[in-house]
């Protein structure tokens, strides 16, 4: 963090003691928050398991065993198998890769578009702002599942496109949040100072305004990821998401829901995994907001 602005007037200089960076402070605050720590740890565990699990498992996610069929959790298949005799654990982990990747990639797309769009609209203001934000309002009014379905129909189905399509509808809220932040920050004295020093607009936006919005942006990002994963689940539920035999959590939950009375494990495990991830992300998001929002912190 090179250009941390003077955040509070109470920064009494103590030259002997080494000052803490903003990031270090945030980290300390985050660590104090038990729920957020839990979220961070469980997310890491899930991510590592999804990345490595399918490589270590003796089964392939598409490997069928028709003679076995659906079997309850056992020593051979820890989470049981589905009706085609496929190992649920490896399908859950392989599906997790898709769900997490969709969540991260789509959020990244949404983040990039939303931040740039919102920052530009907020900084320049005036007519440009009015035009840009009204077009956001128009896009808001579109029912987004239909928009995504339209994109899928136009460009065919592939997983990359799924990321982009979801990202392309998720950036609207981000743009609004960023614009609002920019509007308030650009009136502050340090921006005035930067401007009087003769800095260019781009430099002011990206070096001075943007770092001051990191708190809300990160928070909103962690809240977007679960939303995107739910949307992927919804699209897969409609048959528009990942294509078989690949799985995703949405697909597994949909299939499990159809058979929950006979083979409850097909719903319980994917459902638990999905909920755990969503909870962890929400806890982490809450924790990050508290940790990064300097104005609301007490120290």
């Amino acid at each position, binding site marked *: 963090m090179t250009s941390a602005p003077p955040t509070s007037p109470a920064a009494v200089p103590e030259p002997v003691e080494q000052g803490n960076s903003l990031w270090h402070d945030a980290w300390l605050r985050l660590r104090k928050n038990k729920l957020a720590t839990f979220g961070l740890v469980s997310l890491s565990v899930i991510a590592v398991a999804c990345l490595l699990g399918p490589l270590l498992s003796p089964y392939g996610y*598409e490997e*069928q065993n*028709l*003679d076995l*069929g659906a079997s309850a959790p056992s020593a051979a298949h820890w989470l049981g198998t589905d*009706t*085609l*005799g496929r190992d649920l654990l490896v399908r859950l982990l392989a599906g997790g890769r898709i769900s997490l990747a969709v969540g991260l990639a789509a959020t990244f797309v949404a983040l990039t578009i939303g931040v740039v769009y919102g920052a530009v609209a907020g900084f320049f203001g005036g007519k440009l702002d009015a035009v840009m934000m009204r077009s956001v309002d128009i896009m808001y009014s579109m029912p987004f599942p239909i928009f995504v379905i339209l994109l899928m129909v136009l460009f065919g*189905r592939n997983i990359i496109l799924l990321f982009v399509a979801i990202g392309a509808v998720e950036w609207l809220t981000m743009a609004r949040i960023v614009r609002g932040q920019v509007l308030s920050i650009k009136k502050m004295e340090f921006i005035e100072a930067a401007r009087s020093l003769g800095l260019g607009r781009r430099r002011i936006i990206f070096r001075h305004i943007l770092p001051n919005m990191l708190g809300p942006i990160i928070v909103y990002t962690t809240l977007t990821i679960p939303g995107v994963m739910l949307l992927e689940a919804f699209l897969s539920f*409609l*048959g*528009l998401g990942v*294509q*078989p*035999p690949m799985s995703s959590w949405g697909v597994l939950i949909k299939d499990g829901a*159809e*058979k929950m*009375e*006979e083979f409850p494990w097909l719903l319980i495990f994917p459902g638990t995994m999905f909920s755990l991830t969503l909870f962890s992300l929400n806890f982490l998001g809450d924790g990050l907001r508290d940790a990064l929002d300097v104005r609301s912190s007490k120290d």
Partner: protein
Amino acid sequence: MLPTRPPAVRPSDRPGSRLRGLLRLSTRRKTAALPLLAALSGFLALPSCAKRETAVDVGLRTATLEIGNTGEPGELDPHIINSAPDYQVVPALFEGLLNFEPATLAPTPGVAERWTISPDGLTYTFHLRPNAKWSNGDACTAADFLYSFRRALSPALGSQYTLLFHPVRGAADYASGKLTDFTAVGFAAPDPLTLVLTLAHPTPYLLGMIAGNPVWFPVHRATIERHGTIDQRGTGWTRAGHLVGNGAFLLTDWRPNQVIVAEKSPHYWDAARVRLQTLRFHAIDSLDAEERSFRAGQLHVAHLPPAKATALLAAKSPLLQITPGLNSAFINVNTTRPALHDARIRRALALALDLPRIAASVNSARMLPADGIIPPGMAGYTRAARLASDPATARTLLAAAGFPGGAGFPKLELSTATGGAHELAQAIQHSWRTELGVQIAIVNRESRTHWDQMHAKNYDLALAGWNADYPDASTFLDLWKSGGGWNFSQWNDARYDALLALAATALDPAARLAHLQAGEARLLEEMPVIPLSFDRFLRLVHPSVRGWPANSTDRPDYRPIWLAAP
């Protein structure tokens, strides 16, 4: 307590004081405790609630059959109906010339009490019963049938099943508008109780086409004309109170998306044999909800999700009724695609599938693995050629066609309808990859798009199926005639066409059977479609329902049903 002893009891021992002590909670904190008490009493009352009469019990007392009907019928006009819920209701309200025996689908007398066929097989004479009546008491005569056939064939009405009249001389031309004079069509009514059909060519399965098929049902002329013209759709004549039918039951109430009520008709000629008083058809969109209603005692007869049927089958549940259906599920193969043009490859794809194993794991209750294209139980037909899994031969055939071990085989797409058989598709995909080394992609499409792509011949492989329109093998085999409208495989085979032409003109049943068998054998040799399964109809039937006439067309006859305590 002894009466002689003086009452030297302490206040707290007085009867009632302990009770008051218990109640102190409620007197002290009335507001908090009241809802609690209410909830508690509600909870205690639950067991008695469960014992209260359910709709099924009431039905037993009042001879009312509560039927789960999957969804809201689109229409109750016998000449227009085309969705599954319609077909459950209409046979209760109308009756055609013939009915059918549930087990064999053999024609039985309906409005026609007897019939004769001329030796050349071209003239059918039906003698109507004199006591056949409409539900308003009017007599049901041959003129009604003439009017109804004219209506069903009117081009402006747009009935989807005019095909079932095609054997009758001139009917196809009248339906397409080429012929405008109905008297030139081969229907005649020499007297009010005689109906004569003249055919263009002998059709041994004509009676099967007529029996129980709603497009052959009569409609009441005065009612139709009171609400519109003969060939006008949606005039509202089928609303409760308007509709006049000639069936065993009479429409008395139709609450859209809720229930259709039909009461026993006093004018029905065989009313003495009808034992049910009321039929109630419930429109329940979701199979899950229908199954839950059945478990809650709201329905006597219900559909259920196929996945649940597997569990019930395994548990040998007496409630589950499985009826083989006259239908066939298969993969359409687009034979104009380069890789699929070679019959050896199509055969290899078919032989690589171990259908019994796939059916057992995908859905053992619903799927009967196919060994041919024509379902078992087809009247007058027995299969000569059989398809059996043979992966070794499949690999040899594929190698001979130039793709040993699947090397270099193009990546084809298998199109499926959303919400359909995605597990079946994945099992097929897996079999082809492991047995043949052939990779295919599964493409899920919305159901209508899926069928549109097939009509447009814009697909490689597609899961499809066909329900018999009438109980004869030709309803399936005719699909793959060269240039046929449903020949999505675009397979043109002179030998196959010749065999079907021979069968169509053969008067001798044995010769006809031989031609049809040869036709199916040719189909299995060339494999323009890959047979998959024959699907069964699954139902939950309450033990109090007696005489439910399960049949392979899934068109119920409500007349013989009665309710008795299990």
